[in-house]
């Protein structure tokens, strides 16, 4: 760890303010084969997501007669990080797939599609922190694009603690040197948190501050997601003509 401070006068290594997010980009309808798809970029973290379904479910013993079964796979492209990642699931990606699945299952009206499966595949193409958040944001767009009825879009964003200071949307060197990572998934319309993970030592006040910051970030993302979907529908309308 360097002696010199990363954050000086409340300005972060990449020039951002403490509660400033990286610039971002959202798109819907990027994978033609899928029933719905989404793209989300937050700074240098890029994810695409595809949704297939509701569709018939194999093997049969997983079929739920009262609601849809949600399958979710979060996967990092082997070249998305500085060290190549061996293809195939690992413990980290298995856990992330599960927490993302739980978060998305929270908002889908699963009972509208009994006996079917809804499959969500997230690919991280380039990673610079917050990959689970960016993946969730893309998946949320993909679900909406697939026409799956949801209570609301899930939005996701992380806060963190670096040199004892709470900041929004940790990235780059902050991610390596930071003390705490705090990703959340949030649904604005319900004011509820559907994903929350935290590691690192933090007290309750700091945590509160982090969650408030992250919620602020989620609200910005929410607008981006909606815009992407609006553009998609507009384009679809044009295509139809």
């Amino acid at each position, binding site marked *: 760890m360097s002696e010199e401070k990363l954050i000086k006068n409340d300005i972060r290594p990449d020039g951002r303010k403490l509660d400033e997010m990286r610039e971002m980009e959202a798109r819907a309808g990027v994978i033609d084969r899928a029933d719905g798809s989404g793209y989300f970029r937050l700074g240098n973290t890029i994810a695409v997501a595809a949704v297939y379904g509701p569709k018939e479910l194999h093997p049969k013993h997983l079929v739920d007669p009262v609601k849809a079964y949600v399958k979710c796979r979060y996967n990092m492209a082997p070249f998305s990080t500085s060290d190549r990642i061996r293809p195939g699931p690992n*413990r*980290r990606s*298995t*856990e992330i*797939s*599960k*927490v993302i699945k*739980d978060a998305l*299952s*929270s908002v889908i009206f699963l009972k509208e599609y009994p006996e079917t499966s809804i499959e969500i595949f997230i690919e991280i193409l380039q990673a610079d922190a917050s990959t689970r958040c960016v993946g969730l944001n893309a998946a949320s767009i993909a679900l909406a694009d697939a026409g799956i009825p949801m209570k609301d879009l899930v939005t996701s964003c992380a806060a963190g603690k670096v040199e004892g200071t709470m900041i929004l949307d940790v990235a780059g060197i902050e991610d390596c040197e930071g003390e705490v990572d705090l990703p959340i998934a949030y*649904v604005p319309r*319900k*004011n*509820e*948190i*559907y*994903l*929350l*993970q*935290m*590691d*690192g*030592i*933090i*007290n*309750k006040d700091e*945590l*509160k501050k982090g*969650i*408030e910051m992250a*919620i602020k970030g989620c609200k910005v993302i929410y607008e981006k997601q909606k815009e992407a979907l609006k553009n998609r529908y507009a384009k679809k309308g044009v295509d139809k003509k």
Partner: protein
Amino acid sequence: MMTEIDKEYVRTIIKGDKRPDGRGFEEFRNLKIEQGYVKNAEGSAMVTLGKTKILVGVKMSIGEPYPDSPDKGVLMVNAELGPVASPDFESGPPRPQAVELARVVDRGVRESKSINMEKLCIEKGEKVWLVAVDIHILNDYGNLIDAAGIGAIAAILDAKIPGIKEDGTPDIENRKEKLDVTQIPITCTIYKITGKMVLDPDLKEESAVDGRLTVTTIDGSICAMQKGGVCGFTPEEVYKAIDISIKKGNEIRKKYFK
């Protein structure tokens, strides 16, 4: 295994601010910790939480450190939800539930900096102690996460470092000093059932759980959190959950870890 009727029964009782077995919402079932259960393990603890039974063992071996921490030992936490413990578990590679369980416990121990990993360096950059904490579920009767978290730290506190034989392998006949444990992280999970927050559900209650928030605490601070399940927590509920966990953590720490 629990039927829809069981589930509805639990929900009705809890809505009425009671629990099926009469406990208070923030009351754990009877907790028993038996350290030193397994002689071949460097440390072990049999945890009984109500009818839930978990055996945690610590084994130490000698290996290479990670390149980015050449003077530190290596910690690994693994959980097996084997078919012995529940009709819902199957043989085969760890499924997401087991992976999540292991990783939540791992983060609690790791992030609390509970173990002084520098003391596990044998020869910088070459040889360090690898500490494998294995969580072995024997009977799943609800709230595995907290039982596993408590079992892990109990087993770690029980562990003694082996000697080293002439041929460079561990000598478990001559275990010497204990692991240097500076913090005692306690895992406490807040479960939401029909909007109420309850601790330590048993098997029947667990079938009615909508969501959970696991909070691992050390004295006064939080070192790891994990939300699970499909129901949401408002920010206020999160803050309340933290208060409960800190309080419960202190209580357990005082009662069971002196």
